[in-house]
């Protein structure tokens, strides 16, 4: 029964993959190996598509794997199974937090956690930035690394930074406006080279 197996496998992935969409990849690779539903090359394609479509990456991957394995019902079942553990765990954590939110120790814990959370976001943002602006990874050879810079991306990012921070009316535009414009600019100016 492929549907039941899909539910079990994705529930497990949702339960054990901690730290976001990228953390699901090793679990998905294992599902492919043990079930034969898809190959590792299929998985590489799925990652690429998940990254270049709207929606959280982890969710996109689950939908794609589910669809490849068992069609539309598979896509829906895999995604719902992936999010089920999140819903259960978060509901429990929420209950705990509301009960203890005025507790001094819990407040002290969040006083420490908040800056760490921003730190993690900053570092993830920097990772995305390196990936977007340089085509090769830094491996000790600085000239090769700098040579792989995608100048178009860097120029666009610099312009967007100025517009979103310093141009009075544009600052308040919805982020999706900038995403849309960037997509068009990317197509018109052949950003991928």
């Amino acid at each position, binding site marked *: 029964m492929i549907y039941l197996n899909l539910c079990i496998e994705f529930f497990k992935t949702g339960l054990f993959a901690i730290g976001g969409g990228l953390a699901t990849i090793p679990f998905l690779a294992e599902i492919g190996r043990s079930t034969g539903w898809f190959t590792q090359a299929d998985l590489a394609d799925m990652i690429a598509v998940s990254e270049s479509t*709207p929606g*959280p990456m982890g969710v996109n991957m689950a939908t794609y794997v589910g669809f490849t394995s068992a069609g539309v019902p598979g896509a829906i079942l895999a995604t719902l199974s*992936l999010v089920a553990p*999140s819903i259960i*765990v978060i509901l429990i954590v929420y209950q705990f937090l509301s009960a203890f939110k005025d507790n001094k120790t819990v407040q002290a814990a969040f006083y420490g956690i908040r800056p760490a959370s921003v730190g993690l976001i900053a570092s993830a*943002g920097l990772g*995305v930035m390196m990936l977007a602006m340089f085509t090769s990874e830094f491996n000790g050879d600085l000239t090769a690394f700098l040579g792989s810079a995608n100048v178009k991306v860097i120029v666009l990012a610099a312009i967007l930074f100025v517009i979103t921070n310093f141009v009075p009316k544009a600052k308040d535009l919805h982020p999706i406006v900038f995403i849309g414009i960037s997509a068009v600019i990317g197509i018109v*100016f052949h950003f*991928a080279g």
Partner: protein
Amino acid sequence: MLELFITFFKVGIMTFGGGYAMLPILQREIVDNKGWATEEELLDYFAIGQCTPGVIAVNTSTFIGRKNGGIIGAIVATLGVVAPSIIIITIIAGLIQNFADLPVVKNAFSGIRACVCVLILNATVKLVKSAVVDGWTAAIFALTAVLSFAVDVSPIVFVMAALILGILIKTLESKRI
């Protein structure tokens, strides 16, 4: 409830990349437009979302849904955020071969990435203002950012260390007074 679903559907459709790309969209839709959470709460949810099982974007949505619409709200918000993925991916997987290799997709996404970097940067600057309130928190922020970028360690380690530090610092401060 319908509003919750529609809002999270919009968030889902406007997120390109992982949970981090969702942050600027959440700030705009949830904090600025709807007032369903404060910047601080968003940060708390993000921190917890990184240490609990599952996709960060989903965990954060479940949290905000729970806060504003109870258990049903949590489920509705989560379904809203995943619905666009199910629809879009099913269409692409079913109809278009080699979607990610199409030049137009590659070019568009290269442009989008440039934009997402800037949006995450702006979101981070905003969050620093609400999380970094003194020298200690500034140090925790800087250390986490540098260390997590340099070493490949699970985010859980950093969040747990910061949790302990937070409690230690506050305990010491209250003893001194």
